């Protein structure tokens, strides 16, 4: 990183030269590194080292009490041959698709909350934000209770209309959807805040100009607000996809039961499968391979999104 300052000085104008000499080389450069050290060391020790170690360990056979021997691609082969892997991969992609609904919902709510003259915006914003700051385990427990087939509020409510509900989180046909809805519900607040800020940043003049041209509220929303909001939408979809691919705690809490839950396989994600392999079955070799595959999946989907953004994201 240490670019020799002398080489570049003649070409650069004076103020830039001063900045550059701070950034690189000598004592000043050292101070720079010192400033990023706390984060850098944390990142190195807590993220990069474990990631590299996981990758290395995914090619070994782990004894339950430590000690590992190289076994090539055996762990990956075992994972690919495991039916549960394909099933949980499908489930995870479903969670991701359901999770993306949070974006249109948050945009609609953000637009409504941005209506001029609306009173008590702070209250609404807080209300929507509370689920996001609540521990997923806590909200999962409450929702599990709401979903309870015999005593749950949801079925009691549906009963008023003569509809008999089901065992929402124990029925293989509904469990994934039921958990996915809670995931969306818990995330709305976060995306809402981003979209409110995004909408506020849209210059009022554009909207006024559109209005003068005779565009109605819907037209203004779709042709002015949405395109100008696309950078926020892009950011949110990247973050959201990464988060839902790693969904764990809600599933862990909501599909866990002291006797067996027949819907467990239909609701299991890659990370819950990882937990199962690593800590229940003590098969850490297969589990590390699975973790690495998930990382690849996340990286691939993120790369695809960055590719596609050129087609639809509009930078003002």
């Amino acid at each position, binding site marked *: 990183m240490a670019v020799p300052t002398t080489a570049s000085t003649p070409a650069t104008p004076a103020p830039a030269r001063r900045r550059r000499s701070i950034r690189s080389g000598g004592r000043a450069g050292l101070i720079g590194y010192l400033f990023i050290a706390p984060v850098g060391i944390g990142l190195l020790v807590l993220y990069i080292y474990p990631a590299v170690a996981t990758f290395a360990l995914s090619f070994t056979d782990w*004894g*339950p*009490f*430590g000690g590992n021997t190289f076994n090539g691609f055996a762990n990956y082969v075992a994972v690919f041959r495991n039916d*549960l892997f394909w099933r949980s991969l499908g489930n995870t992609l479903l969670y991701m698709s359901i999770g993306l609904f949070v974006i249109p919902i948050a945009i609609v709510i953000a637009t409504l909350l941005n209506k001029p003259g609306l009173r008590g915006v702070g209250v609404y914003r807080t209300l929507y934000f509370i689920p996001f700051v609540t521990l997923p385990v806590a909200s999962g427990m409450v929702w599990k209770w709401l*979903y*309870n*087939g*015999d*005593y*749950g509020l949801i079925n009691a409510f549906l009963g008023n209309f003569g509809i008999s509900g*089901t*065992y929402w*989180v*124990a*029925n*293989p046909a509904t469990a994934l959807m039921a958990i996915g809805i809670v995931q969306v519900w818990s995330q709305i607040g976060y995306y809402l805040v981003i979209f409110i800020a995004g909408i506020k940043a849209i210059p009022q003049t554009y909207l006024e100009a559109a209005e003068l041209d005779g565009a109605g509220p819907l037209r203004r929303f779709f042709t002015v607000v949405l395109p100008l909001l696309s950078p926020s939408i892009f950011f949110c979809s990247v973050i959201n996809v990464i988060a839902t691919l790693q969904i764990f705690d809600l599933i862990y809490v909501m599909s866990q*039961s*002291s*006797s*067996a*839950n*027949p*819907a*467990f*396989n239909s609701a299991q994600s890659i990370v819950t499968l990882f937990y*199962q392999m690593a*800590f*229940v*079955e*003590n*098969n850490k070799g297969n589990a590390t391979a699975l973790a690495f595959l998930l990382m690849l999946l996340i990286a691939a989907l993120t790369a695809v999104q960055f590719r596609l953004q050129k087609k639809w994201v509009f930078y003002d």
Partner: protein
Amino acid sequence: MRRRAFLRAAAAAPAAAVLGCSSSSDDDRQHGHASISYGMWDQLQVPAMHEVIAAFRKEHPDIDVTIQLTPFSTYWTRLQTSITGGGAADVFWMNGPNIRRFSHYGTLLPISDRLAADGVDLADHPDNLVDLYAYQGEQFGIPKDYDCISLYYNTELFDEAGVPYPDDTWTWETVREACREFRVPSRGQFGISSALDRQRNLYPAIFQNDGWVVDGRESGFADERTIGGLEFWTDLINADLAPNAMATADTTGRSLFLGGKLAMYYGLPNDAVEAYDDEAVRERTDIAVLPQGSSRGNVIHGLANVINARTPFPDAAYEFVKFMATREVGEIQGASGTILPSFAGTESGYVDSKPEFNLRAFIDQIPDCIAYPISMDTNTWENQQYTLLGDAWIGDPGRSVADASHALASAMNLVLEQEP
């Protein structure tokens, strides 16, 4: 702890040299003032364990014992990592599903020779339970308590339906007939819980139909007799005489029973505590031996005390484990009313702690018991049981339990094949 042990040994060495040879009494002095930790997970048993430790300290004032309590949900993960990294308790609780793996990988101190030298034969503990904690001819643990399954029933619902209380003449057929009497759809009331619960429901039914779960590297779930045992439960569900697994996943059979929605359920000795604490439930609850299938049959499991192979104080740890296997400790544990102690004849304390319940039923069934089935990777195939059998438990007669059981057998055989 390591360093202290070393210093103590170093300090004792010259003394031993001066005395010439070390007799057994010198050995005792060498491991004097040991400090060991005792790992367990059940908060309810802590008071009894404090009593046990106090009694132990009377005999061995030079050995300190401290309790290390870890909740069950993290107990095994933590134990496994602390054994790998060092710092695990010197003596700790072990259960059936985990004993083979821990002993196979040399993490536990073998105690057969020490027991033989002391003339301790463990005959006062149930045989099949003692055998559960032996691996390749070596004893690794001594049972501390045990449980098997009995039939809990709601006397109010029995009176209401005019069904006579269950006794040892009951068979599966009696259960089926009674369940028809108890079914009240409008109240969500059923006769019995048929939850997908291996210890309470699956294993007793399998054993009562002369089926089996695991033998060496072979799964018993492809055996017709095993499947017949499972069918006892799924037939009840498919006939709408018992709540399906979706219902019991949402609300456990035990909770449904405590809430008065079930007339009967198969329960562990521990389950009596909750039923007893609520006065209304206590008054309408009693316990009987299990109804019989083609034979009597039941499953016995119990915890054992084992010693960490890397303990710096093997002698002190062994003394503690040996003490835990005595009548005195059985009586302390029984009197606490939390568990059934495994030392024969000390159960009376437990039975007397809840005189309104026929807790004798548990003791009477010991001769019917088969040991809790285990292998090396027990957790892996136990997990498969729930995920693969679940389909047959949701009350859809189109999904046959025979198919699910055969699928389980092949998945389980793969696991068993790969065991070390």
